[in-house]
């Protein structure tokens, strides 16, 4: 009796466990089903923010708009400063496989018509459009429509033209702004590092994003300023007033891996700032000559070096001390304690939006409103850096005096250049390329250093001393394509010839 029972039970036990036993491709320690779209939000937001002021965009942008230059006694960023081929591959890999992948996943997990989840859809879609714009602005033509579909076995996504990408981004932002969020449940603030779950601020962010997408194409044939002006003036339009940022309190400057990215590059042990970063004369002189109060906050010291001049053996100011022995101003990021005002990592800043609005008014000939928003932008930048005195726009060098379109665009662009230092480096680079201000001065520094020093073209960019020959006196316009894309994608085009290749919207005359 016992024996029969025993033999009956054993096979049943094996049979029940069978289907699990053969499922060998599932790792029990890895989450396969994502419980809620909010789980993906923090790392995706930090991925975008971290890359905006990370290794490639933070240093690449910072050097290419001449806030900084490579120091004389080290070599880490020489290749950037002498315009050698760069591909910014770390930023590309991280953004595509990290942030953009996650934003796409969030929009797939959060249906846009489900009131309990649609706010996550809104945030994911807004940040996806925002990030895609930056990726195409930086690299130009890239895979877009066929991208992020490796799981559908689209392993060789073809490259889309920037014009087509912008057309799709514009239709996406319109669809997003048309969503009815009246019943939407607020997103969980603990998972939203940028706005803490305030969906109204996200709506304003999306509204400003539409403006940014439109204005970036200002030099292309399809740009219609009257439409953009009507959009700004429309009562239903909400535009960002509170900066979208990763607030300073998010970081922990004493802990490995928890610092603001620029601090990680210094405090993390590698000392990239103290060894390699010095102020560039192009930027620092503009601030000091004009008594801009932000100079003393952005830098320690008042002496800047010619851009890309790190191999100099000369004595450019004729004071008896060779260039490589002088003491140059250093960046606030290398201070012993983290500079609190610069620890807010801007995704989209309030000064940026004010400057966009000012520019649209200027293009429409309404200089009164252009001045109003220009002043608001400069004030916001000063306030961010802890400065309440707004003398520079009342009586100082930055008073808005333009009465013609081009002069107005220049004024706005110059203050944008100043405001973005230590905050939005890649944005600064992109806007410089779009507006062509600061302008580029052709002065040949190497042929006569003393003259160049004594007659420095304050308020202009100069051509890298070491990079002049390589790009034939042009400035960088976009990085090349990462090798990880070209070597692994059979539909990829050939590599760009150098870093001076302009993207489609970069059509204004000038360098």
């Amino acid at each position, binding site marked *: 009796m016992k024996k029969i029972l025993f033999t009956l039970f054993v096979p049943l036990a094996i049979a029940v466990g069978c289907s699990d036993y053969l499922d060998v491709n599932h790792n029990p320690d890895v989450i396969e089903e994502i419980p809620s779209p909010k789980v993906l939000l923090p790392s995706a937001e930090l991925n975008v923010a971290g890359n905006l002021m990370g290794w490639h965009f933070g240093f690449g942008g910072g050097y290419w708009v001449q806030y900084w230059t490579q120091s004389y006694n080290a070599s880490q960023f020489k290749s950037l400063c002498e315009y050698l081929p760069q591909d910014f591959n770390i930023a590309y890999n991280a953004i*595509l496989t990290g942030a953009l992948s996650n934003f796409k996943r969030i929009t797939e997990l959060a249906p846009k018509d489900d009131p309990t989840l649609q706010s996550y859809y809104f945030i994911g879609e807004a940040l996806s459009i925002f990030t895609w714009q930056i990726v195409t602005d930086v690299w130009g033509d890239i895979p877009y429509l066929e991208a992020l579909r490796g799981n559908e076995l*689209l392993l060789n*996504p073809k490259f889309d033209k920037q014009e087509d990408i912008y057309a799709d981004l514009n239709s996406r932002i319109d669809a997003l702004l048309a969503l009815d969020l009246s019943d939407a449940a607020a997103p969980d603030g603990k998972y939203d590092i940028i706005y803490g779950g305030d969906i109204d601020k996200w709506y304003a962010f999306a509204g400003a994003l539409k403006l940014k997408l439109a204005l970036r194409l200002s030099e292309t044939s399809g740009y219609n300023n009257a439409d953009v002006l009507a959009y700004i003036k429309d009562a239903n339009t909400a535009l960002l007033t509170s900066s979208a940022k990763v607030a300073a309190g998010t970081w922990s400057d004493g802990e490995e891996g928890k610092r603001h990215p620029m601090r990680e590059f210094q405090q993390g042990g590698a000392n990239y700032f103290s060894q390699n970063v010095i102020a560039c004369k192009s930027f620092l002189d503009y601030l000091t000559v004009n008594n801009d109060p932000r100079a003393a906050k952005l830098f320690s010291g008042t002496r800047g070096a010619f851009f890309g001049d790190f191999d100099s*053996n000369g004595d450019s100011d004729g004071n008896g001390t060779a260039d490589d022995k002088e003491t140059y101003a250093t960046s606030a990021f290398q201070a012993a304690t983290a500079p609190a005002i610069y620890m807010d990592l801007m995704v989209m800043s309030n000064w940026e939006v004010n400057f966009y609005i000012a520019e649209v008014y200027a293009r429409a000939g309404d200089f009164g409103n252009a001045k109003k928003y220009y002043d608001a932008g400069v004030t916001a930048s000063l306030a961010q850096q802890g400065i309440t005195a707004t003398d520079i726009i009342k009586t100082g060098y930055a008073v808005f005096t333009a009465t013609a379109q081009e002069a107005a665009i220049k004024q706005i662009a110059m203050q944008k250049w100043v405001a973005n230092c230590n905050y939005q480096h890649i944005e600064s680079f992109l806007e410089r390329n779009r507006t062509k201000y600061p302008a580029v001065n052709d002065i040949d520094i190497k042929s006569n250093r003393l003259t160049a020093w004594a007659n420095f073209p304050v308020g202009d960019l100069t051509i890298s001393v070491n990079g002049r*020959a390589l790009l034939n006196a042009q400035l960088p316009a976009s990085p090349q394509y990462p090798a990880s*894309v070209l070597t692994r994608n059979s539909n*990829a085009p050939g590599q760009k010839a150098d870093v001076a290749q302009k993207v489609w919207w970069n059509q204004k005359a000038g360098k």
Partner: protein
Amino acid sequence: MGAELSFLKNRIGFEVSYYNRYTKGLLELLPSDPSTGYTQRMANLGDVSNKGVEIALNLVPVKIADFTWSVSANFSKNYNMVESLEGVDEILIDGYGGLGMYAVKGKPMGQFKGQIAQKVLYNGVESTVVDGKGNPVPTPDEQFMSKDINEKFRIGASTIISWKGLSLSATLDWRYGGYMFSYTKDYMNWVGSDIYSVMNNRYPFLIPNSVVQNADGTYSENSVQVDPTALHTFYSNGGLQYADANVIDRSYLKLRDISLSYDLPKSICKKIRLEGLRVSVNAGNFLLWTPQENQYIDPETTTFGNDVGAKFGEFGVNPSYHTYTFGLNFTF
């Protein structure tokens, strides 16, 4: 297929075998374009064949009373060929930035491809194209370098000498052929500590047989020295060869181990109530000889995992270690 023969009461032994192995649908972790949202995928690489021969020889040249000396040697040679790939002619297996290792249809696995110095034929002489500062110009696209990871042959030898309870043995391993990437060499050129980064004692020099490209596409003889204040740029880019400079010969000869052991005679063992006692000392990874172009690293080290990709080379790996062991064996 093989044969094993021995003569003279096992004083001379001889083995030979031949094999021919065809692997269909080799599985490999392949890199992906990050635009797809993924950086890697596990997929079928294609079909690969390995054919080869192994020969072994065992000799006991001396065997008298308490003294024996035996020697054995083996030789093996493998022919590797990528027979077919999934729909393409070449697939990247591993690598980084400007240098990669590819599976190419119709060639042995692991062909190196990267940017090399541009060369042109100028007045019948192969010349290096340089830029306005005297530095070599890289080819815009990556090129195959006719270098691959596969060794041409390997020979091993070991010997044991024993007399009474004492035994001394050693093993030699010789691998010949093949190439690997060395980041150690790349980095040493970045910081200037490589012995080859002192060309002309760092006084100014002109790249021999160098030409510059004129605006109309023709070439003319170069007269610009490599910028003596910017030697860092010259060497960190690979000097005369660009990325080719960092793909070095992976041949080596190793004295893999030497060991000396002593078995206490049974008579003494019995007195201390043991069946047997052995004392031994062993030195592992004892000596390494590499060709002159490899002043940098033990070719057996790698930082690229433990499958085919590992053969790509090393990315700043720690040097390998000698190991010394001392052993005491008690048998009860």
